């Protein structure tokens, strides 16, 4: 008996040892035969044909077949946890700015210029064979902005240009990342319930329904995402302070992080401020908001807006574009069912970019893929499919005949498409960029938990419990009362019934 137990444990241990080696064998064997590329991207974040198109391009350029394994993630946090724990064996990732910062500081990313040096001999060989690979679309190789919108690079440089990891390494994010898609945070609203005047007057307050629009009460959706909802609360408080509204202002006093009064902080500073005072104020605002909204979502907001289950949604620009297009359109009055509004006083600009992690194996394919994504045609295809704006320069796209033909094919007017402010907002200092919160993230999550669970146990719940207890009490009490009443006139029979109950218990 003991022996068998030992064997079982041995076998189990053997399994544990064997499993990783088996999977290691799997990856090693791929070195020969067709080339492989492992891409790790957001869900629904690329034009469907793009992967196949690139495989064909790779074959055309190098003469070798390529097999792309495309996996997806749904939040930055899931992806980061996987990459930081070393579980993601991939060649390319497409995270958001603040998680690129975190991965970069953790030393998980490769410098594109170093990789360029590694693949230079092979590129030279291919170019000598008649190819023309310049990788000129990439912004990370130190020769200008490539095909990327210069304004976006201008946002990135001052913020992420010199990241110090505290161990003597200074990183320039622009050398590690090429922007892919970008957008803003704003309010997706139903045009028949929320008026433009309301939005212009109350801005972010619409998400708190401070204008007391009865139709809107309990018909608002927020994002079930810590960073974004915190940003919304901060914008709202900033707005209240600037407009001097009576509720939910920024805290008084001086921020210990910036050595300035809170009221004087810029949007950029506020969005990344994790001072206790701001966290507490945001908690109050978010807790109160809970009583005015329908709930928190990350995926069904678009559908609920189109189906008019809710009338306002805190949304990312791409989701909003997608929803507006899918929603109704009244030809007579030329009005769309849904609209997207970014309060000009404060909002967030975000971007996702391609990075190459240290686990990269196929460096050539990874670099070619990034460069391919920077082509105007790839940019417009992805942008059209996903809804977010491509980071590829507007002017380059406009000048490209294929792009113009593609836009018209999709029933858009070219001028209208590129001049749409929802798609291409003016980039100014009122749009803040999120940065990694570092260790402060934990207190933020705690705050979010408290805000989401509201003011403890709701009173109604205690009422339900009380009613149930009362109900049981009445039934049981009533029974005993009934029995007592029955027993009184028939005192003689009492012994008898006792007897029967005793026997019942014995049997049981």
């Amino acid at each position: 008996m003991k022996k068998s137990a030992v064997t079982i444990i041995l076998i189990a241990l053997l399994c544990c040892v064997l499993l990783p080696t088996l999977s290691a064998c799997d990856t090693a064997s791929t070195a020969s035969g067709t080339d492989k590329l492992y891409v790790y991207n957001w869900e629904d974040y690329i034009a469907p044909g793009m992967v196949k198109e690139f495989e064909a391009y790779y074959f055309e350029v190098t003469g070798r077949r390529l097999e792309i394994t495309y996996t997806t993630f749904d939040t930055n946090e899931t992806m980061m946890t996987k990459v930081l724990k070393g579980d993601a064996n991939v060649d390319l990732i497409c995270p958001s700015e603040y998680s690129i910062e975190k991965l970069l500081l953790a030393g998980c990313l490769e410098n594109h210029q170093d990789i360029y040096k590694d693949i230079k001999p092979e590129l030279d060989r291919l170019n000598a064979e008649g190819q023309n690979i310049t990788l000129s679309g990439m912004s990370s190789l130190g020769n200008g902005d490539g095909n990327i919108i210069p304004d976006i690079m201008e946002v990135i440089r001052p913020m992420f240009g010199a990241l110090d990891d505290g161990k003597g390494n200074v990183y320039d994010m622009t050398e590690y990342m090429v922007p892919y898609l970008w957008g803003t945070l704003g309010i997706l609203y139903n045009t028949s319930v929320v008026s433009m005047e309301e939005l212009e007057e109350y801005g972010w307050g619409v998400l708190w329904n401070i204008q007391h629009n009865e139709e809107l009460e309990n018909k608002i959706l927020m994002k079930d995402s810590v960073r974004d909802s915190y940003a919304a609360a901060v914008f709202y408080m900033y707005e209240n302070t600037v407009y001097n509204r009576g509720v939910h202002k920024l805290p008084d006093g001086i921020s210990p992080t910036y050595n300035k009064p809170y009221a004087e902080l810029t949007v950029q500073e506020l969005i990344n401020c994790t001072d206790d005072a701001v966290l507490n104020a945001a908690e109050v605002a978010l807790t109160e908001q809970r009583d005015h909204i329908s709930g928190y979502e990350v995926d069904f907001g678009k559908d609920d807006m189109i189906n008019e289950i809710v009338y306002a949604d805190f949304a990312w620009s791409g989701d909003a574009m997608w929803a507006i297009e899918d929603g109704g359109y009244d030809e007579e009055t030329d009005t769309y069912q849904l609209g997207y509004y970014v309060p000009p006083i404060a909002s967030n600009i975000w971007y996702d970019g391609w990075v190459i992690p240290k686990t990269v194996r196929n460096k050539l394919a990874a670099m070619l893929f990034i460069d391919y994504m920077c082509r105007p045609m790839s940019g417009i295809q992805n942008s059209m499919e996903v809804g977010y704006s491509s980071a590829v320069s507007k002017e380059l796209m406009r000048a490209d005949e294929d792009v113009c033909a593609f836009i018209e094919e999709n029933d858009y007017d070219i001028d209208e498409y590129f001049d749409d402010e929802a798609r291409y907002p003016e980039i100014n200092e009122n749009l803040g960029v999120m940065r990694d919160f570092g260790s402060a993230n934990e207190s933020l999550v705690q705050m979010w938990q408290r805000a989401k669970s509201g003011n403890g146990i709701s009173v109604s719940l205690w009422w339900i419990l009380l009613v149930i207890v009362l109900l049981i009490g009445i039934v049981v009490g009533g029974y005993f009362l009934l029995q007592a009443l029955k027993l009184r006139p028939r005192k003689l029979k009492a012994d008898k019934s006792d007897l029967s109950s005793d026997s019942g218990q014995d049997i049981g």
Partner: protein
Amino acid sequence: MKEKSLRKQFRLTKKVFGVPYILFLLLFVIIPLVLILVNAFLDSNNNLTFDNFKVFFTSSSSLTVLGNSLLVGVITTLICIIIGYPIAYILSKMSSGKILILLYVIPMGVNFLIRTLATKAIFIALGVELGMGTVIFGMVYNYLPFMIMPLHTTLSSIDNSYMEAAQDLGADKATVFFKTTLPLSVSGIISGVTMVFIPTISTYAISQLLSNGKIFLFGDSIQLSFEQGMYGVGSIMSIVMLVFVLLSNFIMNKFNRQGNAARRSLW
């Protein structure tokens, strides 16, 4: 001679068939539990720490959420008993009860996520505001069969002669029920309560879907912690949940032994 003894050792006995099961348990139950236990004592840089305990037990948010979950669990279980017991009782009295019970069991074959999404669609179509009420409805709807099944099995297995004997001895209908049927079905009630209470305190998909994320329960809290990479605190929460599961199991077992009713319950 030696070969023979070897062969004798490797005889295909019943025990051999247990080996895959034990292996499975080891790989997918014991090892993950050990991992949770280890994670509970590590900080984000894999150093030994007790801070995770401090974070959990001193923060009002996690304790409130835990309280919420327990309360929802208790309410769901009580409602399930109140609805489930009469149904099981009536069905056990009917000759066609065995067929009718299928009506309660068949929906269990449909994935609970699909059922919950359908419930949500109905609530939205009816214009009911999603919140605590809808969450409790969804929980009761999902776990009611788990209450009815063991109750029905126990109730229908009670020998009718006990009831007849009680009636012969002069007890009226109510007395018969409260003095014979109810005590004899205690084991069914207890297994029903276990089957409902334990899953409800750890549920999270139902609460999230039927309240649009507005009702935040312990399961949601654990999920959020792991999603945010806070493995330590998440592990502690999992352990607390495990303690509650074990505790309720222990209490139920105690009750069951005291009741010492017929152990013919299905579960």
